[in-house]
């Protein structure tokens, strides 16, 4: 069976079943998960969205509601969570286990300052028994000022520990006044306040920039090292796992597929699903070549199924897999266990990652050949010349009168061109102005200064653009939910642009069918409404709409960042195919460098509205010339188990309302020198691309 | 009628719906304190501002020269005696040693002041027609003698000024500031606008110290609220409880019910100067359509007397046996309608929204007239709107009442039926028409009656006029009003007067065994 729970075992889950009642019938979110976490150990719980990893985590602390645990047991610090009283549960939460949730913007209470929220958590830990409402409401005489003051001071220490700069000031700040990174740190502080033995971190870094993520993971590692606190890290990002986890548990459709030490899993995955998952990661595949994918989709959680849930998508699947109990086989000398019939079959021979993966489209695609190589082609589609966009923050007369008329430089004197058929990737931390730049190109925004040229002719905002210019640029937005009109069918959505240029019905019909086919959607989905589609499908529709009128450029604003690895891989392939067939140019905006590395021909690195470095992808990734680029690259969690990240950037970028003098990056730059503060560096031409740093040179 | 016609006349000839009530709030423990709530808000500034926001009626703070007997005859009050020295001159002897609430003694000067300033000057021209006085016509003969020079022979003068609006006040009283100084048995203590007026016993009252130490007059315009107030014990005594509650009140032994016919009479008034109600046969038809008895017994729960004439029979010169009668006779009625000029168009019937049971009566009439093929449209309107309509004569029928708050009831004939009467004057002068004035001999009879000193002559003249009026079916008489008083059974000593506003509180007592 699964690992024996030794006396060092802190958490042990046995055959856990958590179920949700829905109108469509019961959803088996967690369907027989068994796992353990030992003291002081960092375990990664990995799986795609809907694999049940969060529900598992929440079940551990008894927050599964409205779900219900129908079977199995959870023992935490020798307390049976599944049948613990509220009091016991509270005690557990107060001392033993803490939780860090995913989205820092939502996990902090907006109406209390962070100090209060942390202090509260400390107080609970100190006196879990007596919790008097009036006391917690700070109603004198119940809540004694001095006491709370004491807790607040301890809160400040904690904030310091988790790396919130100048905590004494921030302690009074409300969540919305903190940056995303700081919020998540505050969240961590709340979790650590009770000095727990186990911290459950549910996608703690997913919403954060790579740099911030790196810092936070570092914190976790330190904390684990110093206090021996065990950490259960729930994530979809194998990179993160590789960074800090000792052991990995791979979930699929509510069941454990495989567990084992991190290295073993990464280097020698035994379960077909694990393999596939690893293989469809962009960083595993050399650029230009097509991404392997997992065909099919995650089984309906409502359907009750027999056998291995992955069987339908698994190419090794046999009859045995499809029904009957699947054994979970323990591998020798603590190398974990695999729940697979086949596992013994290919125990040792781990196929070379990359090609020949299960379910991978084995043909190295047309994309490779016809994909635009080094982009030394002429005829730029879009040219930006000294384009700036400033937003005035002083919206009212009074402020102007008070002279507090500060402007936010979203984009600052950017020169950039996008050439036909190339993929230009625009990368940078959130708030660096990527999206604004895109809007300037599409015309949703008009530049404060500078000119945007499309096909050589200067253009203004949407309103003043002629039909041709408009049709020449397509857009795909980030959020699958809001990018389609919930009240229009797929058909109508795609049909709309065609109608607007006055195509007649039959012609439109054909076109729609063709487009659906191109983006790999089936005919019958034409009549479905967005809410009936998966995130991936919605993005396909969005793409279809974007290319409906044969644009020469498509602006892709974080098109895949909301998607799971497997889905993402397939979408990236679709994009590649389209580019190949239609000779499209992409402006590919993303914060995920691993994806960028895979798709981009050229990369533009943006920081505080300014381009730090522009150059061919391979050159930029192999030999970054700008310290910021370097920092970004170092922040990427490598999949090499031991490979730890280099020194990453501290804290968040300065506010774009008052950027530093001279080089905007100098405040965070490891190699900053006085002159960086004095003079703003020129864009230097390098033999390939350019860089905006005093020290940039070709190596 | 006049009631619905003039704000002031609303007082003079107020259609007699008003009530008393005692208020539990505050002083139930005080056995000699009573609370009186009135259907007409006793603090309604829009009517009573001339009395500092206090109704002159009911409250008995201020008093007129003359009072009225139970059979509606003038009765000496602040004046002990009066004589007509010639056709147009009345000389009044004042009662001596009558103290005002401020201690001053009542003298001729006060009377002159009251008439000249408060009434003739402030009230303006139309009181002239009512009192037949004009500014400068009131003179002091000596400290206790006042002479009145009427514009024309006016035998009804003493009775006419036996009215709470002709109450005597000294020049010292700053009425606009709410300072009310009178000679009455009670002194004004407090006014809460929209709620109540509170008065207290005046020990030096010339008529002897009254029994109640305190009276509170509460506004309770809504009949149901009024009744509820009594039942909840918040008031000790109310006038005209909700008819729907009479029977249950009668069954209670802790409540006593008394009733008294008033000077008021309710009729359907027909606009004789507008088609088609200018057609006498239609008017007669309408008369034949209605059963007064049925109305009284059903909708009115037996309160009031079926009427045959437009004026209450408590007025001495009214004798309904002398009047032509119209029994309910639908066939006759239908024939009359056929013979009339009525062409089936909808006739407008005005109903005063404030009139208790007005809507019900209106609807009963509507269906009664419908029976004989006359189609009427009820317009239940607030007073202001009704005034608009009547001033322009833009209606055919109106359900309304007329009554007198003074023994001098002559003007009931004059104002309603004489061409120069207040109802008809404007339209007559403007268009040569009017509303209820038949003109000719009727006017003559009314004038004769008005000027007759000999009661018999007056009676004959008025009867003649009424006969003609009823013969021409100017009104469809409905009922002579009676008012009901429901009181805590423990209360005694209230004497009901045909003029309800002449209520006498001085003898009110509460027997010890108050079972509330």
């Amino acid at each position, binding site marked *: 069976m699964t690992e024996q729970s030794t006396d060092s075992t802190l958490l042990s889950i046995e055959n856990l079943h958590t179920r949700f009642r829905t109108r469509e019938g019961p959803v088996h979110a967690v369907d027989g998960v068994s796992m353990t976490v030992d003291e002081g150990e960092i375990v990664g719980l990995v799986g795609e969205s809907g694999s049940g990893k969060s529900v598992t985590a929440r079940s551990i602390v008894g927050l599964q509601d409205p779900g219900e645990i129908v079977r199995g047991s959870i023992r935490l610090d020798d307390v049976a969570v599944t049948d613990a009283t509220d009091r016991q549960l509270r005690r557990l939460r107060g001392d033993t286990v803490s939780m860090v949730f995913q989205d820092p913007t939502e996990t902090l209470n907006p109406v209390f300052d962070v100090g209060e929220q942390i202090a509260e958590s400390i107080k609970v830990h100190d006196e879990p028994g007596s919790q008097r409402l009036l006391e917690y409401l700070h109603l004198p005489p119940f809540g004694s000022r001095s006491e709370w003051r004491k807790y607040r001071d301890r809160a400040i220490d904690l904030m310091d520990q988790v790396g919130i700069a100048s905590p004494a000031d921030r302690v009074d700040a409300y969540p919305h006044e903190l940056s995303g990174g700081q919020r998540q740190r505050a969240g961590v502080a709340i979790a650590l306040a009770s000095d727990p033995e186990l911290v459950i971190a549910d996608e703690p870094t997913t919403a954060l920039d790579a740099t911030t993520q790196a810092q936070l993971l570092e914190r976790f590692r330190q904390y684990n090292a110093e206090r021996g606190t065990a950490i259960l890290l729930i994530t979809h990002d194998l990179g993160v796992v590789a960074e800090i986890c000792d052991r990995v548990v791979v979930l699929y459709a509510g069941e454990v597929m495989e567990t084992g030490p991190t290295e073993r899993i990464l280097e020698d995955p035994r379960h077909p699903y694990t393999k596939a998952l690893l293989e469809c990661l962009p960083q595993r595949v050399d650029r230009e070549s097509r991404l392997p994918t997992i065909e099919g989709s995650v089984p309906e959680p409502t359907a009750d199924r027999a056998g291995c849930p992955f069987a339908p998508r698994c190419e090794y699947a046999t009859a045995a897999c499809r029904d009957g109990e699947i054994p979970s086989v323990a591998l020798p000398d603590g190398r974990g266990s695999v729940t697979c019939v086949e596992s013994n079959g290919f125990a040792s021979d781990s196929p070379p990652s990359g090609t020949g993966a299960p379910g991978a489209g084995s043909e190295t695609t047309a994309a490779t050949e016809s994909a635009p190589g080094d982009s030394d082609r002429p005829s730029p589609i879009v040219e930006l010349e000294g384009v700036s966009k400033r937003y005035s923050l002083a919206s009212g007369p009074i402020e102007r009168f008070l002279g507090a008329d500060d402007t936010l430089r979203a984009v600052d004197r950017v020169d950039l061109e996008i050439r036909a058929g190339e993929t230009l990737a625009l990368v940078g931390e959130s708030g660096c102005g990527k999206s604004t730049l895109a809007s300037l190109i*599409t015309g949703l925004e008009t530049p404060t200064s500078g000119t945007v040229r499309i096909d050589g002719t200067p253009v203004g905002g*949407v309103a003043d653009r002629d039909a041709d210019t408009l049709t020449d640029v*397509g857009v795909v937005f980030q*959020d699958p939910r809001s990018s389609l009109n919930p009240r229009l069918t797929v058909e109508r959505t795609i049909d*709309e642009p065609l109608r607007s*240029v006055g195509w007649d019905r039959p012609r439109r019909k054909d076109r729609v069918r063709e487009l659906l086919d191109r983006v790999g959607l089936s005919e019958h989905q034409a009549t479905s409404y967005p809410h009936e589609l998966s995130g991936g499908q919605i993005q396909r529709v969005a793409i279809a709409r974007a290319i409906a009128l044969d644009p020469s450029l498509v602006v892709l604003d974080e098109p895949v960042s909301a998607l799971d690895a497997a889905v993402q891989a397939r979408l990236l392939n679709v994009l590649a195919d389209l580019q190949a067939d239609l000779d499209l140019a992409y402006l590919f905006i993303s914060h995920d460098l691993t994806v960028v590395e895979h798709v981009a021909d050229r990369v533009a690195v943006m920081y505080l509205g300014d381009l730090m470095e522009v150059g061919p992808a391979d050159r930029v990734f192999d030999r970054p010339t700008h310290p910021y680029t370097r920092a970004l690259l170092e922040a990427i969690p490598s999949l090499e188990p031991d490979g730890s990240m280099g020194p990453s950037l501290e804290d968040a970028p300065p506010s774009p309302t008052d950027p530093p003098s001279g080089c905007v990056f100098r405040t965070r730059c490891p190699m900053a020198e006085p002159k960086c503060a004095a003079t703003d560096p020129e864009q230097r031409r390098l033999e390939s691309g350019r860089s905006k740093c005093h020290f940039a040179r070709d190596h | 009628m006049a009631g619905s016609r003039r704000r002031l006349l609303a007082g003079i000839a107020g259609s007699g719906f008003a009530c008393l009530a005692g208020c539990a709030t505050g002083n139930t423990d005080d056995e000699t304190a009573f609370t009186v709530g009135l259907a007409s808000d006793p603090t309604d500034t829009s009517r009573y501002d001339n009395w500092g926001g206090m109704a002159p009626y009911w409250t008995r703070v201020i008093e007129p020269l003359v009072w009225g007997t139970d059979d509606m005859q003038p009765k000496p009050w602040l004046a002990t005696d009066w004589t007509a020295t010639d056709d147009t001159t009345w000389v009044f002897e004042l009662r001596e040693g009558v103290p005002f609430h401020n201690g001053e003694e009542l003298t001729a000067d006060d009377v002159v002041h009251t008439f000249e300033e408060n009434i003739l000057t402030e009230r303006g021209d139309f009181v002239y027609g009512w009192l037949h006085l004009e500014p400068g016509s009131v003179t002091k003969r000596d400290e206790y003698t006042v002479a009145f020079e009427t514009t024309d022979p006016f035998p009804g003068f003493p009775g006419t000024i036996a009215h709470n609006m002709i109450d005597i006040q000294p020049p010292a009283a700053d009425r606009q500031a709410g300072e009310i100084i009178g000679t009455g048995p009670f002194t004004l203590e407090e006014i809460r606008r929209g709620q109540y007026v509170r008065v207290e016993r005046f020990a030096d009252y010339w008529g002897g110290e009254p029994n109640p130490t305190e009276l509170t007059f509460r506004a309770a315009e809504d009949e149901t609220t009024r009744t509820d107030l009594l039942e909840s014990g918040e008031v000790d005594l109310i006038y005209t409880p909700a008819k*729907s509650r009479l029977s249950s009140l009668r069954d209670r032994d802790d409540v006593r019910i008394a009733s008294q016919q008033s000077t008021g009479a309710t009729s359907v008034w027909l606009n004789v100067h507008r088609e088609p109600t200018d057609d006498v046969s239609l008017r007669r038809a309408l008369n034949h359509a209605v059963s007064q008895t049925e109305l009284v017994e059903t909708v009115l729960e037996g309160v009031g007397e079926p009427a045959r004439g437009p004026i209450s029979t408590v007025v001495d010169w009214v004798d309904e046996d002398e009047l032509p009668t119209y029994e309910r006779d639908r066939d006759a009625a239908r024939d009359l309608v056929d013979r009339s000029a009525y062409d089936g168009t909808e006739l407008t019937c005005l109903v005063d929204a404030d009139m208790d049971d007005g809507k019900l009566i209106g609807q009963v009439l509507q269906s009664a007239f419908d029976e004989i093929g006359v189609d009427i449209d009820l317009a239940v309107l607030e007073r202001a709107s009704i005034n608009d309509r009547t001033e322009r004569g833009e209606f055919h029928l109106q359900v309304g009442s007329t009554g007198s708050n003074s023994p001098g009831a002559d003007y009931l004939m004059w104002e309603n039926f004489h061409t120069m009467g207040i109802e008809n004057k404007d339209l007559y002068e403007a268009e040569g028409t009017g509303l209820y004035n038949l003109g000719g001999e009727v006017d003559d009879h009314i004038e004769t009656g008005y000027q007759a000193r000999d009661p018999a002559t007056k009676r004959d003249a008025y009867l003649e006029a009424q006969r003609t009026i009823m013969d021409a079916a100017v009104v469809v008489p409905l009922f002579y009003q009676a008012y009901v008083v429901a009181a805590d059974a423990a209360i005694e000593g209230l004497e009901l007067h045909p003029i309800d506003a002449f209520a006498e509180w001085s003898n009110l007592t509460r027997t010890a065994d108050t079972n509330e």
Partner: protein
Amino acid sequence: MIAGLDTVVAALRRRYRAVRTSRTTAAFFANPLNGVGLVIVAVLSIAAVFGPVIAPYDPTSQDLVNRLQPPTPAHPMGTDQLGRDVFSRLLYGARLSLGIAVAVTAIRLVLGTAIGLLAGYVGGWLDELLMRLVDVQLAFPGLVLALVVAGILGPSLRNVMLALAVVGWASYARLVRSSVLSTKEREFVQAARLMGVSRRRIAVRHLLPNVVGPLVVLATMNLGTVILGTAGLSFIGLGAQPPTPEWGTMLSAGRHHLREAWWLANAPGATIMLTVLGFNLLGDGLRDVLDPTHDEPLEKSI
């Protein structure tokens, strides 16, 4: 605007189809109360349409001898002060009350939607102007203003409807405008703009349909409030003239008999309550279906 209207209709038709699909129906009946609301409203509509047919008596025929009869098989809800059959009067009243409610609500809806759409989509000074207008209207407590207007125009049902209509459109305008503003920023609208879709088309194709749901909900609930408003005005003495069997009038007249003839006031009272309740429940139900991400209606005031 005509184009706008028929797309609204089209949208409604789509909604209707949507409602028929099992999922939404399930959503509707998930809360038992919704079903109740549907039934109440259905019954009322039937009463309103066939009232005169069903009614055992003429609502105005009097029978003074049998006045104030308690409920009997002959008179299921007793008789009133003039011996008229209360049940029949209620039935006729249904037609009246619902008629008024629908008419008033319709006026409000059209007026408000037009203004809201204009303000939200055109924006700029026009928006400012219209919204101040809305504010002004909302600044007057509905019933108070209605009372004054109707009172000055003189008591009649026509004037009451007029008064109620002019004081009720603002909330629609607000609803439409805010929805338009938020939808305007949604990415699919931006996409449409980038596709060169015309403004008018965006308005009717993307903006309006997204507000139809909330509108329907608001309107449904409004039917209730209008009925209450009418009753309130009748109580004050405006509105229907006798012998019109208007619910509010019947209720306030029956008040005087609350103790001896309880049915007089309570029959119309309960009827009004049930009606409004029905519309509210139905509104909630519709919201569950049409407008899943909702706010509660802000005003009870009309």
